């Protein structure tokens, strides 16, 4: 218990003085996860809209697969990406292993099914509302998708934030593909793992507090957003 208190007080000191290591690691976490979020959303949201409005033979199976992929263990994704990006692997020539780009790739793969599934649910509901009107107006498929995406933007933002929450706390995959290299690929979660392993609880706790803070903030945003949706604002 004494350890914990000593750790916590040291953690607060690091936070308050904006310790250099802490800041650097936090910024990198944000860089990686926000990039993954943007790229993941650009892939997942139109995909969700496409699945909502187009009817094609394998639509139900695709949706089922997407839902199943949400349960993909992140560390397995990390392993597969590692094997693919390793120099002795098919895309080794790109030299991406142990760089932040590899971490972004792994995180994108992990969060796209999540964002797409959640978004698809909302878009499907909205489509059942709009269906008669938009068909009657003869709008194109592209216009249907864009109309849905715009009008459901609050729900889509919620879906994206869920993806963010998943990604920021992920440690297995990015540890494997990033290598947890100091000053290069070390982020909040991997640093916590490392520092805890070394027995240096102060820094680990400080980082943990930030991570928890980020996760809580994101969840609060989701909560606030869904309330504004119900009240019909913006």
């Amino acid at each position: 218990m004494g350890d914990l208190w000593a750790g916590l007080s040291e953690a607060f000191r690091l936070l308050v003085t904006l310790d250099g290591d802490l800041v650097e690691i936090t910024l990198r976490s944000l860089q990686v996860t926000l990039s993954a979020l943007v790229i993941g959303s650009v892939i997942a949201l139109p995909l969700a809209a496409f699945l909502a409005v187009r009817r094609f033979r394998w639509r139900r199976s695709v949706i089922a697969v997407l839902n199943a992929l949400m349960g993909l263990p992140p560390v397995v994704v990390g392993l597969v990406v590692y094997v693919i990006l390793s120099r002795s692997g098919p895309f080794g020539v790109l030299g991406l292993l142990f760089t932040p780009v590899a971490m972004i790739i792994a995180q994108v793969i992990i969060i796209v099914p999540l964002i797409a599934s959640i978004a698809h649910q909302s878009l499907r509901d909205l489509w059942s509302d709009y269906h008669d009107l938009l068909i009657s107006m003869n709008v194109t498929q592209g216009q249907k998708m864009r109309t849905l995406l715009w009008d459901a933007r609050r729900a889509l933002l919620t879906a994206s934030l869920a993806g963010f929450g998943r990604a920021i706390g992920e440690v297995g995959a990015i540890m494997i593909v990033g290598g947890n290299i100091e000053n290069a690929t070390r982020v909040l979660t991997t640093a916590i793992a490392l520092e805890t392993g070394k027995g240096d609880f102060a820094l680990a706790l400080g980082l943990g507090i930030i991570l928890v803070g980020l996760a809580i903030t994101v969840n609060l945003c989701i909560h606030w957003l869904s309330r504004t949706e119900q009240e019909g604002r913006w």
Partner: protein
Amino acid sequence: MRRVFVALVLMVWAGTATAQETMRLAVTTSFHNSGLADVLLPVIADDLGLEVQLLIVGTGQALKLGQAGDVDAILVHSRAAEEAFVSGGYGPHRTEIMYNDFVVIGPESDPATVGNASTASEALKAIARSQAAFVSRGDDSGTHKKELALWHDAGQGADGFGPWYNAVGAGMGAALNTASGLGAYILSDRASWLNFGNKGDLALLFSGDPVLFNQYAYLPVSAELHSHVKSDLAAQLEAWLIGPKAAELINAYSIGGETLFTFNAKP
């Protein structure tokens, strides 16, 4: 609103540019846990303008990374595996840099009376006999290989051990943590032990047997096999590591007054 957003974006992505040369070196967790890297790396950056990115993994994985060409050089401590690496053509040569020793750590109360042993073999036999809790690296690292070799020499087969033998599959720091938590015996390199921050009830119980000798060597990865490898930078680093400045820093490195490594490279 838009301006705030742009400012946030810039703030997050600012400062990602680096001007130095970089190379990747896979090192063992034992080496990293000693803290020596934190002393050497800044000096290397100053002297050579070289940023060495460390991948901290077990010896087994370091060798694999070298074989695959995912790193430019490796620093490990398992002679047999290193020689196999070179003879397999994965690296042109191996260069000895420094050595330290392994020690037997255990709970202060020492239920297996390891402190009374006169050789490493006796110490391990005592632990096996008393079935006191023991933590093994279990990760195919240099330390792990050493531990298995020692059990073998003591006439014990690690495969047949009961639940008192815990193979954690982790680095030195994490394994020490587990040992601390379990109040168990563990074989560690002296440097990692001295630098370990969570000793709890553990104490150094046995050391000094010559068989616990632990040699570190530097192996550049073969540029013939992997043309993308930064072999010139790896060569620069190697030259520095066997040079006088490295010798000075390594021999002077101490924790709590005890020096950890002895430089033994032949220039």
